[in-house]
C-alpha cells in the first residue's frame, strides 16, 4: 500500500510544473559546474606538477652541494595536491594557502646562517580582488541551497493540499493507517526530487568523465557515491520538514510561507550570522606584532649566546658547539612561534565552525568538503602530512650525518656537519595524499548530526500527522 501511495505521488509530481522547472534548473547548474571544472582543473593540475618538480630540483641542487647545505636550506616549498573532486566543493580553497614553506630563513652573519624552519604562509586573494563576491557553483551549492529549496517546494502542499481538496479524508476512509500514508508520501516526494537530481548528476559526471584531462579513479567514484548519499540524506531532512509543517498547517499558502522563512533563516542567514554573533571574526592581533615578537625573541637569544660565543676562539670545538646550539635553538624557538600562531588560528576557525553546525547547510557543505578532499579539514590533513614529512626529513639528515665518519655531528654550523654531497635518490620526498578513512573520522560527527536532524523531523512529522484532524 505504501508503494501504491508513493506511486500516485510520483505520477502527480512528474507532470507538474515544479518538476519541469526543477529539472531545468538542476541540469543548468550541474552542466555549468562540469564545464567550468573542465576549464579550470587541468590548469590547476599542471601548476601543481610544475611546482612539485621545482621542489625536487631545489632539493637536488642543495643535496649536490653538501649535507650541511641541505640541512640549512631545508626542503623548500611543500605543495598541496589539488583534489580531483574540486567540482563537488570549492571549500574556500582560495583562502587557504596551497603550500607550506619548509625553508624560511631569517638572518645570516659572516660565519653563521639561520637554519630553516617550517612556516605556514597565508593566502590573501582578497587584497587585490575588486570583483564582486559570489559563491562558486559547485555540488555543495547545488545541494545545499537549490536542492533544499526544491525539496520544500515539493512537500509544502503534500498534506495541507490534500486536506484542502478533501482527498485526504477520502484516502483515510479506506483501511490505511496514517503512518502508511505519511511514509508513502515521503517516499514519493523523495523519488520525485531525486529524479531530476540524479539526472543532473549523471549529466555532470558524464561531461566530466568524457574529458581526457580529468581522471577519476576508483576511490574518487567511491567518494562521489558517498557524497550522493549525503545529498539524499539532506533532501530527506527538508522533505521531513516540509511534511511536518504541511501536516500542522491548514492552508498550503501558509505552509509555504512558514517553510520559506525557515529556509531563509536556517540556510541563508544562519551560517554567516552565527559566526559573527560568536564574535569569532575578531582580529587575533595585527601581523606586525608577530614579526616584532619574533625578532625580540631572536634578539634575546642572541644576547644570551653572543658573550659566550666570543669567549671561545674561532674554529675551536667549543665555539662550534656553542654556535650550533645557538642556531638550532633559534630555529626551534622560531618554529614553535609559527606553530603557536597557526594553532591559534586553527582554534579560532574550529570554534566558529562548531557554532555554525546548527545550520544544516553548513553541515552538509562540511561533509561534502570532507569527502571531496577540499576545505578546512583537508587543509589540516595537508598540514599533518607536512609535519610528518618534516620529521622524516630531519631524521634523514641526522642519520646521514652520523653515517659520515668525518663529521663532528654538531648541527647548525657548516664546520660541524658533514660536507659530503647527498645522494638525491635517498632523500625522502614529500607527497601529499588523501585518506578516505581519515575523512570518515572527521565527518562522523557531522554525519550523525545530520541523521539526528532527519530522525527528529521525521518523527515530528509523524506525530503531527497522526494527531491532526482531517
Amino acid at each position: 500500500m505504501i508503494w501504491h501511495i508513493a506511486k500516485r505521488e510520483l505520477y502527480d509530481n512528474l507532470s507538474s510544473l515544479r518538476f519541469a522547472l526543477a529539472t531545468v534548473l538542476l541540469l543548468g547548474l550541474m552542466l555549468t559546474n562540469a564545464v567550468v571544472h573542465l576549464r579550470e582543473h587541468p590548469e590547476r593540475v599542471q601548476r601543481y606538477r610544475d611546482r612539485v618538480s621545482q621542489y625536487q630540483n631545489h632539493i637536488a641542487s642543495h643535496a649536490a652541494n653538501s649535507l650541511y647545505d641541505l640541512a640549512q636550506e631545508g626542503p623548500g616549498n611543500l605543495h598541496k595536491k589539488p583534489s580531483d573532486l574540486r567540482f563537488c566543493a570549492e571549500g574556500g580553497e582560495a583562502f587557504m594557502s596551497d603550500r607550506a614553506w619548509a625553508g624560511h630563513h631569517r638572518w645570516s652573519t659572516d660565519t653563521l646562517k639561520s637554519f630553516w624552519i617550517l612556516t605556514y604562509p597565508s593566502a590573501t586573494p582578497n587584497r587585490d580582488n575588486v570583483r564582486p563576491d559570489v559563491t562558486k557553483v559547485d555540488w555543495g551549492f547545488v545541494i545545499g541551497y537549490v536542492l533544499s529549496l526544491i525539496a520544500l517546494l515539493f512537500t509544502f502542499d503534500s498534506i495541507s493540499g490534500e486536506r484542502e481538496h478533501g482527498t485526504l479524508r477520502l484516502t483515510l476512509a479506506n483501511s490505511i493507517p496514517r503512518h502508511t500514508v505519511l511514509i508513502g508520501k515521503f517516499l514519493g516526494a523523495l523519488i520525485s526530487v531525486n529524479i531530476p537530481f540524479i539526472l543532473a548528476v549523471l549529466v555532470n559526471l558524464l561531461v566530466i568523465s568524457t574529458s581526457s584531462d580529468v581522471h577519476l579513479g576508483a576511490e574518487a567514484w567511491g567518494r562521489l557515491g558517498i557524497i550522493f548519499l549525503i545529498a539524499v540524506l539532506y533532501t530527506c531532512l527538508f522533505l521531513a520538514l516540509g511534511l511536518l509543517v504541511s501536516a500542522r498547517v491548514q492552508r498550503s499558502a501558509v505552509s509555504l510561507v512558514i517553510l520559506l522563512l525557515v529556509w531563509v533563516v536556517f540556510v541563508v542567514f544562519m551560517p554567516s550570522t552565527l559566526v559573527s554573533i560568536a564574535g569569532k571574526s575578531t582580529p587575533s592581533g595585527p601581523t606586525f606584532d608577530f614579526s616584532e615578537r619574533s625578532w625580540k625573541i631572536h634578539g634575546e637569544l642572541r644576547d644570551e649566546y653572543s658573550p659566550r660565543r666570543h669567549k671561545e676562539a674561532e674554529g675551536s670545538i667549543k665555539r662550534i658547539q656553542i654556535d650550533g646550539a645557538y642556531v638550532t635553538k633559534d630555529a626551534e624557538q622560531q618554529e614553535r612561534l609559527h606553530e603557536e600562531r597557526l594553532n591559534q588560528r586553527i582554534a579560532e576557525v574550529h570554534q566558529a565552525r562548531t557554532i555554525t553546525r546548527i545550520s544544516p547547510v553548513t553541515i552538509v557543505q562540511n561533509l561534502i568538503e570532507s569527502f571531496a578532499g577540499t576545505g578546512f579539514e583537508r587543509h589540516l590533513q595537508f598540514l599533518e602530512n607536512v609535519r610528518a614529512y618534516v620529521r622524516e626529513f630531519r631524521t634523514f639528515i641526522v642519520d646521514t650525518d652520523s653515517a659520515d665518519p668525518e663529521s663532528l655531528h654538531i648541527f647548525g654550523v657548516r664546520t660541524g656537519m658533514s660536507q659530503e654531497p647527498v645522494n638525491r635518490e635517498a632523500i625522502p620526498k614529500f607527497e601529499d595524499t588523501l585518506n578516505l578513512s581519515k575523512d570518515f573520522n572527521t565527518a562522523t560527527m557531522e554525519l550523525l548530526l545530520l541523521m539526528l536532524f532527519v530522525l527528529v523531523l521525521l518523527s515530528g512529522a509523524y506525530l503531527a500527522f497522526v494527531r491532526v484532524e482531517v
Partner: protein
Amino acid sequence: MLITLIRRELLDNLMTFRFTAAVFIMLLLVVANTFVLIRDYERRLTSYNTAVEKHRQELLETKTYSSVDLILDRPPNPLSIFNLGLDKRLGNTLGVYYLYIPSLWDAGKHGTNNTYLNLFSSIDIVFIFEGVLSLLALVFAYDALAGERERGTLRLVLTHSVSRGQILFAKYISAMTCLLIPLLMCFLLVLIMLTTSTSIFLRTDDFLRIGGVIFTSFAYLSLFYLIGMLISAAIRRTSTALMLSMFVWGFLVLVYPNMILTAIETAPQADTETVAHNQIKQIWDEFDRERMQFLANDPVPEDDWDFGLWGKGYSFWGGRDDSPSLLYYNYSGFHFEELLEESEPQVPHAQNYHRFLGLQITNTSDRTWIVRKPALEALYVQPAKMERMLLKFSPVGLYDSATEAWTGTDLNGLQDFFTAGQRYHQAIVDFFHDKKVFESRQWFTGDKRGVDWNILPQFSFQRSDISINAKRAFPDLFLLLMINLVLFAAIFLVFVKSEV
C-alpha cells in the same frame, strides 16, 4: 471608488499570517545582524585608531627624510553596516613614498590577520533585504490576481464601474504599503541602534545616503512585487503562479548571480601583466643608466654611490619588484642615524647626488605611472566591471551596486581614498622639491638638527559628497525604476486583455 478598493486590499493584506510573519522575521534578522555588524564596525574602528597612533609614533621616531614611512590609514565606513561592499576586503593602510605613486594594489592591511576566517562569509543589511524582501514581495503578489479570479471575486468587482487599471493600481498601492511597513520598521530600528551606539557618528549627509538606500530598497521591493503580479496576471491558477514565482525567485536571487560569474571567465589578456612589467622595468633601467652616468661624471673619482660616508645605524634603500601589483622600483640610497665626524668633507657630494637622484626618481615614478595606471585598470578593474555588468541582468545585482554606490563602499568610493592618497603623494613630492629636501643634510643623516615632522603637509580624507554618491547610484536606480515601469505596463496589458 479607488479609495474603497485600496482600503479593502489593505485590510486584506494586513490581516494575513504572511504579513505578521514578514514583520517578525525581518525584524529578527535585522536586529540580530545590526548588533553583530555594529560590533564588527567598532572592532575595525579600534584597529584603525591603534594603527593611526602607531604610525604617528613611528613617524616621530624617524630621523631622516629618506627613511620616512608616511602611512595613511583608511577609516572604516560607518555605512558599511548597510552594504559592506569592498570596505572590509581591500587594503586599509597605504604607504606614501616618493619612490612610486601609491595605488589600491599597494595597500596593506592592519587588523585581522587570520586569513582562514575569510572562509566564513559576512553579511550586511542589504543582503538581508535582497533575500527576504524579494521573497516577501512575491509571497504577497502571487495570488493578487489569480486568487481573486479563482474565488470569483474579481468578476464581482468588475461588475461595478471600476476600470481594470484602477484595480491594478489599488492592489499595487495597498500591497506596497503593507510591504513598506516592515521595511521602514527595519530601517528605523537600524537607525536607532546606530545612533545609540557610542562609536558611530552619522552626519547629515549620511542620513541622506541612508535615505537613498531606503529609496533603492523600495524600488527593488516594488520590482519583485510587480514580477509576482505579472505572473499572477498571466497564470490562471494560484498554485501554479506560486510555484513559478518561487522558481523565478530562486533563479534571479540565488542561481543567476552565482552561476553567471562561475560560468563566464573575465580574465584580462594573459600578457598584460608581463608587458607592463617589462615596460616599467625598462624605464627604471634607463633611470639607472643615467644614475651611473651621473656618478661617472661627478667630481668624486670613484663610481661609488655612498661616497665613503660612515656612520652609525646605516641602512640602505633597495629596489622592489612586486609583479602582481606592477610595483617596481630600483634605487640605491642610504641613510644614517648618525654620521661620523670624518665623513663631513664628503657630505656636499652626497647632497649633490641626492639632489639629482630625488628629481630623477620623482620623474621616473611619474613616467612609470603612465604605464602602470592603464595596466592596473586592465588587470583588475576591467574584469571587475565586466562581472558587475553581468550581475546587473538580475535585479539583485542592480540593487546591490546601487546601494553600494549610496553607501560609498563600491569600487569608486574606495578609489576616492586612494586618489586622495595619490594627491597627498604629489603634495609631499612638491613639498620635498620646494623645500629642497632632497639636497638637505637631513635627507640622509639623522644628526644635528632633527626633522620637524609637523611641517609636512597633512593628509585628510573625506568621503565623497552626497551628490557624487547620488550620481554614481543613479544609473542603477534609474534602471530599477525603468524595469518597474515596463513591468507595470506589461501587467496592465496582460490584465486588460485577459478574460475573467
